[in-house]
């Protein structure tokens, strides 16, 4: 469960990073009206990826966590960039549900742990 939560955190992290450039978004968005947008999203992406690292490391230590997070990030990033122009709705829907999925799997892990 923790690994699944971490994987969703990785999806959220790269999704936010990809969205930091408004040109990559699937809908029209004026960056002029909100100059803080890219910075805020990059900060959010960094937080989500750090969260993924913490979750992956929680069961197996930091060294192993870094290795697993790297592999997950490489995979998610490749998938995201290749699928975003082909299956835009699917990929952005995944990003949209990722906070809920992250919370759900973390909760399930918490309940299972008790």
């Amino acid at each position: 469960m923790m690994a699944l939560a971490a994987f969703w955190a990785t999806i959220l992290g790269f999704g936010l990073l990809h969205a930091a450039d408004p040109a990559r978004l699937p809908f029209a968005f004026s960056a002029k009206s909100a100059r803080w947008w890219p910075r805020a999203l990059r900060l959010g992406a960094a937080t989500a990826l750090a969260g993924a690292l913490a979750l992956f490391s929680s069961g197996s230590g930091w060294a192993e966590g870094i290795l697993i997070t790297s592999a997950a990030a490489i995979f998610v990033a490749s998938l995201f960039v290749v699928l975003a122009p082909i299956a835009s709705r699917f990929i952005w829907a995944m990003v949209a549900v990722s906070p809920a999925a992250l919370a759900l799997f973390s909760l399930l892990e918490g309940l299972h742990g008790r």
Partner: protein
Amino acid sequence: MKLSKHAFTRFWDVHAWAGVCAGLLLHVIFFAGAFTVFREDLEVWQDPALAVSPTEVKSVDALMAPQLATLPRAPEIVGVWLPSPEHATLAFNAKLPGEAEWRAMVRLDPTTGAIVAPGARSRLSTILYYLHFLYHPNAPWGMYVAGFVTVALLLVLVTGVLIHIKDLARQLHQFRPKQKLRVVWSDLHKVLGVFGIPFQMMYAFTGIVIALAGLQIAAYAWPLYGGDEKAARQAMYGTPAIPEKPSGITRASLPFDDLLTRARTAVPELEPRLIRVHHLGDENATAQVWGDVPGVLFSAWAGGVVMRAHDGQVLHTSDPRVSATPASAVWRWVGGLHYIYFGGLGLRILYALLAFATCFTILTGNWIWLERRDAKRAHVGNRIFERLTVAAGGGLCLATAALFWTNRVFPVGSAGRKTAEALAFFGVWTVALVYCLIRRNAHRAWIATLGPAGTLMALLPLVSAVAADKHVFNLSAHGAWAIAGVDLGMAVLGLGLIFTARALHLRTRVEALALIAGIAPATSHTEDPTLPEIFAAGRSSR
């Protein structure tokens, strides 16, 4: 950072030529490697009888004694693999004095001691495993070829980073599927290649160390150890060399159970996986017990004890929690990273997918090289290279599908099963190669190999359901989940190949229409006609 024009050209040339020379073999290595990460699961899938109920082994000697009694003479080396989460059976193999090859691995039911799947077992996972490092027992030098090819990969990766470094950040997010195929290949090559660099670099480095270890020992032995290969080997692996010659004096070795107890005493918490005894029953007999040590990174196979077999005197212990020589620490990391001794099933799936992504990077690299160098394939050498790329890409997928089908279609336990699998794999691959060479249109050859390969793989769960008793539609049977996992994985891979073939088919038609409609070839990638423009041109040309 921007390179000078001269440096850029040189690096580009090295990147392109090293990639082209090593690319096809590297594709084979990564493709087979993607399957090899699931080797234990494949071994159960290929012989479903191996999926026995897991039981704790009370006495290894009770299980092994009847088997050792069947051997005509005392073995030179005997290995006993204890049941593990991946394999619930107890397995043993032996090499007898005077015999060039190891005897086939025998697997025992840990509860009854009966041989599991006594007939001729499948070679499916072994074929793919050997292919991963280009090895064959009769041609072990193939592993060195794999090692040198991997050195070329390292060169390709470093030069690739250098030539793309000036616009690396932009290329990371750039994939334009609506542009011409040439641009699509180029974007895929850059996106998958750049994101995959850490993964590819890690596998290149660890692969070189593993594949070329034998050559390194030979190279060090004379200048550093005066020709003493044993000393060189000990320095390389950090474990003492085993005496190679028996004394000729008979002396009973300790029972396997005793050896296990002594190993657990020498390395507390050791979870033994393998007992290996050299010269069993001889005064010089040496026993090794290797296994997992919990609490350290890459704990699998991290601990071990080497003992004198007749009295159990400990000659060497390997326990990374207490002490580790630089050599043993390096090997633990190299082995742990390469064989994925961490992270579990989820990480192995990720690694397999990243290996397939690397295959895409390699094949698209070849295509880019051809398009830039000889877009019309005017030279016969380039035409042949183009067809070889299709045969290595699509042909290998088709051969793999044929291998899996043969395993299920051929009766379990029949004598010709192993040969049929090897013939199906290499035969179909050869036929695919010949087909690709004689086919006029290479794009058509891609579609004609990827499409059937995908269809065969996608249908594999159905064939399994008919031919085997444990399958995706019968998950109640013990061990069925591992088998169903392989079935489903192959089906997903098959659907991916069908999607790729379909996309290629559509794009080839569209670009042919664009050609008929007379859309002028673009002068640069960004000026290529987009897909809607090509469609519109196609409609107006009708």
